[in-house]
């Protein structure tokens, strides 16, 4: 590899120009917003057997991420409007912190009856969430769920949960704003869009949905 040869330098300049043009297009045009809208999941409000809130993230001290909090609040709101008699929180475990337990405490603090809560901690992927929630609910004779997750994640999650044998009514949470206009925010939005597109590709390859 000779980085100083004229041919290599010309190639690197071409690549650099493309990279900068790409950043400019993402940061200063609505491309990321348009792609977000194309991947965005819908909401279809209906009553069901359980409200299932999918995981997002928690820090090692037990503090819920913004996405996790938004989803948890939407789940509590759905339950309190009477969508279902059971509220299910899934969650990752990070060091000693459990996202599901932190959400459960929040729900109880906000007035949810602990007897109507089901926690599914320690999940790592959407496929694991679907398998564990489906097993827990079908064991109780329940099949119909209001699924609460982020706007980009919804379509993939809905397919995986349906494949796990549940009837799904999506309740989408805007945990990523699709209306960002500042360049850095649009770059972050594009990262989220590409991340979800890659995850969908991987799930399709694995036949998980």
């Amino acid at each position, binding site marked *: 590899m*000779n*980085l*100083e040869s004229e041919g290599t*330098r010309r*190639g*690197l*300049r*071409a*690549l*650099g*120009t*493309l*990279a*900068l043009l790409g950043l400019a297009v993402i940061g*200063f045009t609505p491309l990321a917003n348009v792609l977000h809208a194309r991947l965005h999941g819908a909401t279809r409000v209906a009553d069901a057997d359980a409200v299932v809130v999918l995981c997002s993230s928690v820090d090692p001290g037990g503090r819920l991420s913004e996405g996790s909090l938004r989803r948890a609040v939407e789940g509590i709101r759905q339950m309190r409007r009477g969508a279902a008699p059971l509220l299910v929180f899934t969650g990752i475990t990070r060091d000693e912190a459990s996202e599901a337990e932190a959400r459960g405490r929040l729900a109880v603090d906000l007035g949810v009856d602990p007897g109507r809560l089901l926690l599914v901690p320690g999940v*790592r992927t959407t496929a694991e969430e679907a398998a564990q929630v489906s097993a827990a609910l079908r064991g109780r004779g329940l099949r119909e769920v209001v699924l609460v997750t982020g706007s980009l994640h919804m379509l993939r999650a809905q397919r995986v949960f349906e494949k796990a044998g549940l009837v799904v009514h999506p309740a989408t949470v805007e945990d990523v704003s699709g209306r960002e*206009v*500042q*360049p850095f925010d649009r770059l972050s939005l594009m*990262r989220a869009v*590409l*991340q979800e597109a*890659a*995850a969908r590709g*991987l799930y399709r390859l694995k036949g998980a949905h």
Partner: protein
Amino acid sequence: MSTWVDQVFPLALAAGSSLALLLLARGRGFEAAALREALRRALEFCGLGAALYALNLGLAVAVVLAVRALGGFLSLYLCVEPSLLALSLLQALVLQWWAATSRR
């Protein structure tokens, strides 16, 4: 604040400070002709950074999939960790300077 201001503000700021730097550098005797070479080097740095980021990203995905195939677990979200981009750019900077210094 309007959408237009959100988008134009950082560009206008960078354009203004670039103009000030240009005037300051010219005042200090920097050659105008050397600016063209500096811009070419900057583009080459961006290109090398992009190539190394793609390489590191591919490597990260391969490691995650390999660990999963062996029965362990790593999240794919690790691959889009922003520090990977910063580290790739640092690699590009060191490699570019190393190549240029070796030539002398």
